[in-house]
């Protein structure tokens, strides 16, 4: 694969279709500028700032942009909140749609056939495979990303975190917690 990709890259640069320096900048963007730390900041802000949380639930794209996160695969954001009675899980059964500005590129398992196929029919089994057994009386709500709406789960704030700073809270937020395959 490496040689075939290299050949195509050389051809596209030779033809002027892509800019070699742009390729490096794109890789750098996805390796260092976006990732679950961005989403964790959004979550921690929502936990500590009720006015921000209200804006986030009303118009997530704009509220997330307040923290500087915007762009492709995050153009139409919706935040779904976990509560003691509702647990949310995000999937893209048809391909691999995922909110890049707040979570970065998805892990391999999210793009894999086992997750894409099973998340909608057996969300409780999938979540159990990640180590969380949800009680039967909690409603599980699965969000299949079939259009350009991108979903971010707002996890429940862990107990006994009252005195923590926003930064310390952000450190408790996991990628899987914001996809909904885990609780915090």
């Amino acid at each position: 694969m490496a040689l075939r990709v290299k050949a195509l890259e050389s051809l596209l640069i030779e033809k002027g279709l892509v800019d070699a320096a742009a390729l490096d900048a794109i890789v750098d963007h996805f390796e260092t500028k976006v990732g679950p730390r961005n989403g964790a900041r959004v979550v921690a802000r929502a936990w500590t700032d009720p006015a921000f949380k209200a804006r986030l639930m009303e118009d997530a794209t704009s509220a997330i942009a307040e923290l500087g996160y915007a762009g492709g695969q995050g153009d139409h954001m919706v935040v779904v909140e976990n509560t003691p009675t509702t647990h949310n899980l995000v999937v893209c059964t048809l391909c691999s749609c995922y909110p890049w500005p707040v979570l970065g590129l998805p892990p391999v398992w999210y793009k894999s056939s086992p997750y894409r196929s099973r998340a909608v029919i057996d969300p409780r089994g999938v979540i159990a495979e990640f180590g969380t057994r949800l009680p039967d009386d909690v409603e599980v709500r699965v969000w299949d990303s079939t259009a350009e709406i991108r979903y971010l789960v707002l996890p429940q704030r862990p107990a006994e975190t009252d005195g923590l700073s926003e930064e310390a809270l952000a450190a408790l937020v996991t990628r899987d917690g914001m996809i909904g395959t885990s609780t915090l």
Partner: protein
Amino acid sequence: MNGVHDMGGMTNMGPIELEPDEPVFHHVWESRVHALSMSSPTRANIDVGRHQRELIPGPEYLAMSYYQKWFRGLSELLVSLGFVTPQEYAAGKADPTAAMARPVLPAADVGARFSRRGSFQREAARPAFAPGDTVRARNLNPPGHTRLPRYARGHVGEIVAVHGAHVFPDSHAHGKGEDPHPLYTVRFTARELWGEAANPRDRVCLDLWEPYLERA
């Protein structure tokens, strides 16, 4: 198209393989495929790109890694849209008589390109449905691209959100323009989709365009 990519509801795809401390890219070539796909002139139409990957025959699709599929889709699209000739692709060399193109994404624009807010929402006719309405996903089996998964077809759900009109992939992927239609979030009970064995509390929400729906 009823392809293997439309896999929601299947249960025999094997275990979910978790990888602690997973890197963004596992190989340098994966990062190059991603960057080439993002900067290629073919990226102008995201629906064409999705459909091209769906066109990979099922047995191959299931055996390929994510970035193998992206490389295949990108290669085929560059040729089919005429950016690269089959001879150039095979040789890995540009036709010396061909005119030089200008990159659609120069390095100086990369930062702005990935932090600028875009939109798939367009002006269009008023939505026919409102939150609370009961709708049925039509039993559509188009030969081309669609974002109506098989597992929802024929099932009854409730409109829970209206997102305005969005670019319609079924048209946009096939050179028929953006053809915007109202987009809704439709909530189905797990029992409606999967039968009585499902937990009565559970729900599945999908984002579906108006042409996929009829009043129930």
